[in-house]
């Protein structure tokens, strides 16, 4: 029997740091925010995905995991133990959706978009990617961005452009997206628009 991987070394401080990074990521869409994670979760769950889940999910905020994560039972066990969150199989019930395989298509239309009266009741998608860059890529505009901002994720999550485009027509409903690479995170809240694609 393998031992359960540890959670945050200092729960109060670590959770605040991770939240701070995510808050700044949503406040400044497209900008790289440092995300220090000292976790060593069961793979294929990345330390950054694990940190975001441990900082923000609990029994009031269920988690959905993609097929690659679901294939490894230790992942769900780790998340359940440390967050107390339910791991749901229905995407529409999830507050957070963790995606370890961004190149595989997601049941995007099934995640919660919120309602016209309560648009906040929507799923936040968290993608693990290997690299994030501000040097080249897509041009973003929207609240939180003075003028425009350049951003690229690799691999580019499948269907991400469709999600961002749908957010424009659905607003104020929509899906908020986080992209987490080693040691950093980028936010694409539903207000962010793609003006130029590469």
């Amino acid at each position, binding site marked *: 029997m393998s031992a359960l991987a540890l959670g945050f070394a200092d*729960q*109060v*401080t670590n*959770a*605040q*740091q991770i*939240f*701070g990074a*995510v*808050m700044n990521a*949503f*406040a*400044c869409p497209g900008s790289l925010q440092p995300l220090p994670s000292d976790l060593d979760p069961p793979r294929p769950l990345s330390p950054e995905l694990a940190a975001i889940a441990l*900082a*923000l*999910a*609990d029994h*009031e*905020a269920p988690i959905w995991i993609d097929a690659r994560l679901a294939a490894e039972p230790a992942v769900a066990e780790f998340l359940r133990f440390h967050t107390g969150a339910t791991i749901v199989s229905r995407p529409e019930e999830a*507050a957070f959706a963790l995606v370890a395989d961004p190149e595989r298509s997601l049941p995007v239309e099934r995640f919660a978009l919120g*309602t*016209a*009266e*309560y*648009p*906040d009741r*929507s799923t*936040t998608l968290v993608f693990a990617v290997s690299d994030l860059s501000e040097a080249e890529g897509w041009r973003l505009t929207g*609240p*939180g*961005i*003075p003028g425009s901002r350049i951003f690229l994720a690799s691999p580019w999550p499948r269907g991400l452009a469709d999600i961002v485009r749908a957010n424009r027509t659905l*607003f*104020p409903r*929509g899906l*908020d997206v986080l992209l987490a690479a080693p040691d950093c995170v980028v936010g694409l*809240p*539903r*207000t962010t628009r793609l003006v130029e694609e590469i």
Partner: protein
Amino acid sequence: MSTHVSAAASPEAGYNFAYLDEQTKRMIRRAILKAIAIPGYQVPFASREMPMPYGWGTGGVQVTASILGRDDVLKVIDQGSDDTTNAVSIRKFFERTASVRTTTHTREATVIQTRHRIPEETLREGQVIVYQVPIPEPLRFLEPRETETRKLHALAEYGLMHVKLYEDIARHGHIATTYAYPVEVAGRYIMDPSPTPKFDNPKMHLMAALQLFGAGREKRIYAIPPYTEVRSLDFEDHPFRIQTFKDPCALCAATGVYLDEVIMDDRGGRMFVCSDSDFCEERRSAGHRGSMLADAPAALTGDSTHA
């Protein structure tokens, strides 16, 4: 008051860092994230009982407690002033429960909690300003039912608000709303900027700092991300105008700032001074002198060359 950054002693025993328990913080943090993603929309949250009465900033305090980190430097103002009861007690609360550093200087603060003013000094990127909000719903006095105001926001049906402003014009000849002046955020939601004087509304437009709003009794959190368009509602023939003041600050001679009236005696004597105490002090220490600024006695300043 001229306290600089002060390091607080070790935190009060028996409390979690910044008073709130971790589960409460997570719940508030999730609400803050959704609030930032939907600028101007009021996110409901499970507001907790705080060790202070409603109306003393229970919403702002919960937001501040949830975002505060050990390295943050906190400034708290009440009507622009660092040294009034509400500001002093909230600052002490966080010194004792989070042992964070506090300051009166706008420039040094990373988190600024405010009861109804925005500092005169331009806020910068990376700072967060937390507003204490009594009534978050701008339509509440026009439509008392929450179910209906929700629907009006969902449909972006804001005609009612314009009727209210129009009635101001019909009755007074101009828009008489001077505080809690409604704004439109990022072209979508109509929002109550909390009872700040409308003088501060233009500062919200494209502000570099993140703006968070917490209403404890009404259990709502909302936000304006940095660099977001904030438009004060008006009419083509009655454009939005801020208050102007005839004379400069009587202590520091500043113009173009928001002034408080101070009654001097019972014969109509009065002076107008900066509402932002830190701004006024810094100007005075830089040598600016207003018309009513007196010299402190040498015995107090300890400056013998003045005697």
